[in-house]
């Protein structure tokens, strides 16, 4: 008779196969990374530009990024999109505080033709007035929808408090930005940060050496020759901040502080603390605030990185009537991590979970490339993940408690609620 109360024996993960993409120089410090081992017809290219939000004021970086394919003297936006769609390309553009990206997913046979279309569009974009006005009007519609969401309002306020020491990093899109923008400003930003702003090229797909060389040649004219300059000493504004939103049924909560990135000696151990606290389904916060109290559909924590620093954040949306009890429970869980040692069962659970997730993050060419890029940006190589493996295997309850006391004090946090 099968005894269902006895769980099957577990096998430990002691080794993960990390594969780096090959590196090719484009020009100067700018490199192309190529992950060739793709067992199917899919491919992706990504262009990284030193054109993040912090490169300009009044939201100009986001506007230029959104207008990159809006038309050239030879082709309008409909024609550009039609050419890309005829080749089956799926475009994604993204912008963060410190960089801007253009990504394209397509079949490998179409990668180079699509890349040529995109590069031509970026090089010759002429910021046609009609296109610019349409784009701004659409963004405004989207922005007005966002303003109705408590999550957006809390996030925006949080960013302002988090990056309080730096005017450029802290500023979010505001309605007046739609009025003050001009075509001349767009052109100047584009010329400064795109025509002379390419930082990195990433190719995933089974392309041959000749194809990679042709990509190197065609991206070379965009290479950034300027010095990179990112904020080094950001500091946040601790305290409590509320954003009123009439009629909201829920409150959004964002709590956090400036922290560090992979270059800090405490980073990896802190990541384990972060997991225990709020970064998996069985975390302290989920167990208490969702699974025990039912206050929320979800609550989580994260560690985000910037070029020279990073930050920690707790995020949730809770019923209006349970906002105070939720904050009380978050404080309670912080305090518990600082005063009580994590039990060995829980520590083992988190060790195993994190190792399984690391194995998954290295599974497949796309995931593996992204895993590589997240260390490359901090000047590290894949050895970092072997270090991570050993840190996870050797973490102690004392170390977790030490880090909780060092970095997770409620008084140090920016606490934002919107609702």
């Amino acid at each position: 008779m099968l005894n269902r109360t006895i769980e099957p024996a577990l096998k430990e993960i002691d080794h993960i196969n990390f594969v780096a993409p090959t590196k090719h120089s484009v020009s100067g410090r700018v490199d192309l990374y190529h992950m060739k081992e793709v067992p199917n017809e899919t491919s992706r290219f990504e262009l990284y530009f030193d054109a993040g939000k912090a490169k300009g004021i009044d939201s100009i970086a986001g506007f230029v990024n959104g207008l990159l394919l809006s038309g050239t003297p030879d082709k309008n936006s409909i024609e550009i999109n039609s050419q890309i769609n005829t080749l089956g390309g799926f475009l994604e553009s993204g912008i963060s505080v410190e960089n801007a990206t253009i990504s394209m997913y397509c079949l490998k046979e179409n990668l180079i033709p699509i890349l040529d279309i995109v590069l031509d569009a970026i090089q010759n974009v002429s910021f046609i007035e009609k296109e610019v006005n349409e784009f701004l009007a659409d963004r405004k519609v989207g922005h007005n929808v966002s303003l109705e969401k408590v999550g957006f309002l809390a996030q925006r306020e949080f960013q302002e408090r988090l990056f309080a020491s730096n005017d450029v990093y802290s500023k979010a899109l505001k309605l007046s930005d739609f009025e003050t923008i001009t075509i001349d400003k767009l052109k100047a930003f584009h010329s400064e940060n795109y025509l002379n702003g390419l930082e990195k090229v990433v190719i995933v797909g089974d392309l041959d050496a000749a194809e990679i060389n042709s990509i190197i040649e065609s991206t070379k004219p965009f290479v950034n020759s300027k010095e990179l300059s990112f904020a080094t000493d950001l500091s946040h504004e601790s305290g409590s901040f509320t954003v009123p939103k009439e009629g909201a049924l829920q409150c959004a909560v964002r709590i956090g502080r400036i922290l560090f990135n992979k270059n800090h000696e405490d980073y990896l151990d802190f990541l384990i603390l972060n997991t225990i606290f709020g970064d998996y389904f069985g975390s302290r916060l989920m167990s208490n605030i969702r699974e025990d109290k039912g206050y929320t559909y979800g609550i989580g924590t994260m560690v985000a990185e910037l070029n020279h620093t990073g930050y920690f954040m707790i995020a949730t949306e809770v019923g209006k009537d349970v906002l105070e009890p939720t904050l009380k429970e978050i404080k309670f869980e912080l305090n518990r991590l600082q005063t009580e040692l994590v039990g060995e069962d829980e520590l083992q659970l988190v060790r195993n979970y994190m190792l399984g997730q690391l194995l998954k993050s290295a599974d497949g060419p796309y995931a593996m490339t992204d895993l590589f890029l997240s260390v490359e940006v901090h000047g590290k190589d894949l050895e970092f993940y072997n270090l991570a493996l050993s840190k996870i295997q050797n973490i102690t309850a004392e170390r977790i408690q030490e880090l909780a006391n060092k970095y997770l004090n409620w008084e140090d946090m920016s606490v934002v609620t919107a609702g």
Partner: protein
Amino acid sequence: MIKFERFQLENGLRVLFHKDETTPMAVVNTLYDVGARDESEDKTGFAHLFEHLMFGGSVNIPEFDTPLQMAGGENNAFTSNDITNYYDVLPVNNIETALWLESDRMLSLAFTPKSLEVQRSVVIEEFKQRYLNQPYGDVWLQLRPLAYKEHPYKWATIGKEIEPIENATMEDVKAFFTKHYNPSNAILCIAGDLELENVKELVEKWYGSIPAGTKYERNLPKEPVQTELRELTIERNVPSNAFYYAFKMPDRLHADFFTIDLLSDALGRDKSSRLYVTLKKEQQLVADISAYIMGSLDEGLLVISGKLNEGVTFEQFDSALWALMDDLTSTKLSDSELDRIMVKFRTAKEFQDQGLLNRAMNLCNYELLGDPDGINSESEKYHQITTDDILRCAKNTLTKSNCSILNVKADKNAK
């Protein structure tokens, strides 16, 4: 080509095995043939509430998540109007842990009052977060009962309203489990670098002794044929006027299902589609617009939705849209237009197929439809579709008498 093996246990459980030697991870996907369409009208939202309760411990195992995380895995689930799907992704070496957990909750749940109380409030918060506390969040709560008069697609998976979730009792929960959660109503797919013999042995070990249960016979009210245009305008405190045009389309197994999928691509998949180019770029009537099909198993919907530009009236947009429809229902797409749509289709399909979880879910979906090999003939069926087929389907589908329109009027003083 996605290779698979299929076998069935004596208790009726259908099992698919898909071998992939290239990954260290494995997927255990379990599809239960029950969705919101199987709820009674006075207890809507129940299939989804029940999905939450499936994580509250089973008869022999107090907690579902912890042992799976201990095995390095993670899991999630979703409920649709048609099905409830649970999946576990974990290192392949620990596959047995997932089978142990999944089989125990197929056998029986712990049914603790605490779990019901907590998940009830979690689901109510989910209701608020996703449907009530978002601009345009309640659109589907309004559009479904407009488009469907009899068929249970008239309510959303979250439920018609919060009350039935608040009032759910433990007896309701147990009855639902007995009716729908047993091997004869389930499909299991295991994917990863494993051997068939080993998979058979493990599945037999953990699932073989679960009682078959009674196969649930679905007998849903049939939706009467729609004969006239339906229109509803609601006023909400939202920033822009929004529109939703829902056209009835045939069920998933109908020969025209894929053709209408391509028709929706032609209408509104991307920035080269008819709606975008004509109504947005040329006529500047809308801020955004797109078209898609719901993909439901019974008679479904092709939906066109978007937001109006400031200063444009619903009437202006409506006549422009029907003019565009006239064109689509009288003239074939050009060959180059169909080529463009097909390259996009092929690309998307290639990306979908590379994910192990996607393959496992899709195999279960095709088994539910009656033939798991459908996963491999699907592309060929799409490629055989001609511009004549699309024209015929456009004529049948894109008519006023087949359409339900929901307009959301922006009003600062509305709720």
